[in-house]
């Protein structure tokens, strides 16, 4: 029983990083209605920038964190300018494939700068733990959870309590009408994209600091985990992204504990598939049909 609760705690902690990744994804998908496959690799670029500063200039965790977030946001803006801004309505697949091409580009750029398979990444709180009776919680995990909940709240407040959020929701609801009432759609999209990538950067920094290593595979990992958590939680829902992430984390730790490491991902995918087939809207979604192959209908 202790194991069960400890696993659940670990799952929630690890899941908070998935939730953070899904949060950024949700903002991008919500605003663009398009899939940015380069989301993870953008974060990886931030991670590599932070690693370079750490290795060559001995930067501390705060500077590294800033560099990761900034790097991710810049890479995100680059992706938006190249793959999303110039695409016409109805070219959703082209945007997606284009973002995949940029993924290849970013990955090779990272390998050129740091060619080894893995590099060390500065730890946060060096894996210290807190004890609650029989249970342990890592401090860096706790920071991750707090960040996830805090950022989710911030995104929710921004969307529903600010003018910028109002503009974004107008764009989500009807981009053409939003343009007609004087909202600068292109600028809002760029801002949303940069903000989403920066949120991803926060997630990336925390995950890398917990792992204490960075690899070029991080990009694919981040895209996949963010995508799964977002789909389980429900497309376009901010609470859904966080809850989906936490649920994914709990499922993964339990399956790893009871069935072994290979079943960890297997069961996560089985759950995802089952969710999509039985309840495509996820936990919080309203099961709309955001068809990325056709332009948004009025």
């Amino acid at each position, binding site marked *: 029983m202790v194991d069960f609760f400890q696993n659940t705690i670990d799952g929630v902690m690890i899941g908070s990083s998935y939730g953070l990744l899904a949060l950024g994804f949700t903002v991008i998908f919500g605003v663009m209605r398009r899939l940015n496959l380069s989301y993870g690799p953008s974060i990886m670029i931030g991670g590599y920038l932070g690693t370079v500063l750490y290795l060559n200039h001995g930067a501390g965790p705060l500077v590294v964190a800033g560099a990761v977030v900034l790097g991710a946001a810049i890479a995100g803006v680059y992706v938006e300018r*190249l793959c999303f801004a110039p695409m016409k309505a109805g070219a959703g697949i082209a945007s997606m494939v284009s973002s995949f091409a940029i993924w290849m580009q970013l990955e090779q750029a990272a390998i050129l700068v740091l060619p080894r398979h893995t590099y060390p990444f500065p730890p946060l709180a060096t894996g210290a733990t807190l004890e609650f009776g029989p249970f342990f919680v890592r401090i860096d995990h706790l920071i991750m959870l707090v960040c996830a909940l805090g950022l989710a709240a911030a995104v929710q407040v921004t969307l529903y309590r600010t003018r910028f959020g109002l503009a974004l929701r107008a764009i989500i609801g009807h981009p053409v009408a939003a343009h007609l009432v004087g909202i600068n759609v292109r600028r809002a999209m760029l801002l949303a994209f940069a903000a989403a990538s920066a949120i991803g950067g926060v997630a990336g920094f925390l995950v890398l600091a917990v792992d204490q290593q960075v690899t070029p595979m991080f990009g694919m990992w981040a895209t996949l985990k963010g995508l799964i958590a977002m789909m389980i939680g429900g497309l376009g829902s901010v609470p859904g992204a966080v809850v989906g992430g936490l649920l994914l984390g709990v499922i993964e730790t339990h399956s790893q504990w009871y069935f072994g490491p290979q079943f960890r*991902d297997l069961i996560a995918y089985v759950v995802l598939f089952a969710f999509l087939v039985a309840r495509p809207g996820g936990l919080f979604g309203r099961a709309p049909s955001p068809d990325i192959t056709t332009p948004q209908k009025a």
Partner: protein
Amino acid sequence: MDDYLIGVLSNIGVISFIALSAYLLLLTGEISFGQQAFFAIGAYAAGIATALWGWPLALALVWGAAIGGAAAVLVGIPTLRLHGLYFAIATLAFAEMVRILFELFRYQITIDGELVGPDGADGFRNIRYIFDNNIDAFQFLLLIYALLAVVLLGFVLLERSRLGVIFRMIGEDETLAGLQGVSIAHHKVLAAGISGALAGIGGGLYAHLTTYVEPRIFDVMLGVHSLAYGLIGGLGTALGPLLGVLIDIGVLESIRALSGYRMIIFGGLVALLLIVRPRGLLDENVVHKIGRFWRRISPWARRPGLNTGNRNNLTGGRP
């Protein structure tokens, strides 16, 4: 031809099969991130058939295609009502499940004092059919392209047939197609099955070409690549995905001098291309224009009748 060229051409041919399988689904309006699963299933099925059961290659390839197609139908049925991103992620989830299952899959028997067969994450070595039967690389290349030619011919016939029109109609507007009395479910499962079989043949050829497969060959990268080929080359004709493969593998070879930077250059080029031509180089409009030009200059081309006129309305002119 030297070995190197034969190797590159063989690779282009084999990858074309999975590109065509993703393209067929794109025609019906579905994005699949999971064609690599059927490629993997075909590769393992055909490899097991020749290496473990001693089947002839022809039978093994047919078997791989059949298993690939059957698996695709099995996935196609529960995912019928999913569209767009939902369908894409469902196929992705399935493909990753398949990949992980192959990491757990062990089936080895002793042949001539040696263990042969899939060994989990360590892969499936010694699919030695072409060595045991003295088939050289060039003969195998011819085999690949003979099969590819048959598949392309099939696509040409498909585009001219009622079935092809229905596929594109579903891709254009499913509801409208349904109103025309087309059985959507039936045709979507059919398209999924054919595309699974295509990927299965490709997988079988790949396994025998390299003599060695391992689960991580079949990860998301392969699936997204095969999807991208159709979009780079163009969605107007089955030659589009082939052109995409040729550009990716062929052109990359020719800019070998820049080997450290090639993905940077190539990725940028693809992104720029898609801005200018969001439905690829050979998109519907280009194909339509070429077709019209051909009909004008060719004395023995079919005159546009009721049938072809209809098709042009359906397939051309997407904005």
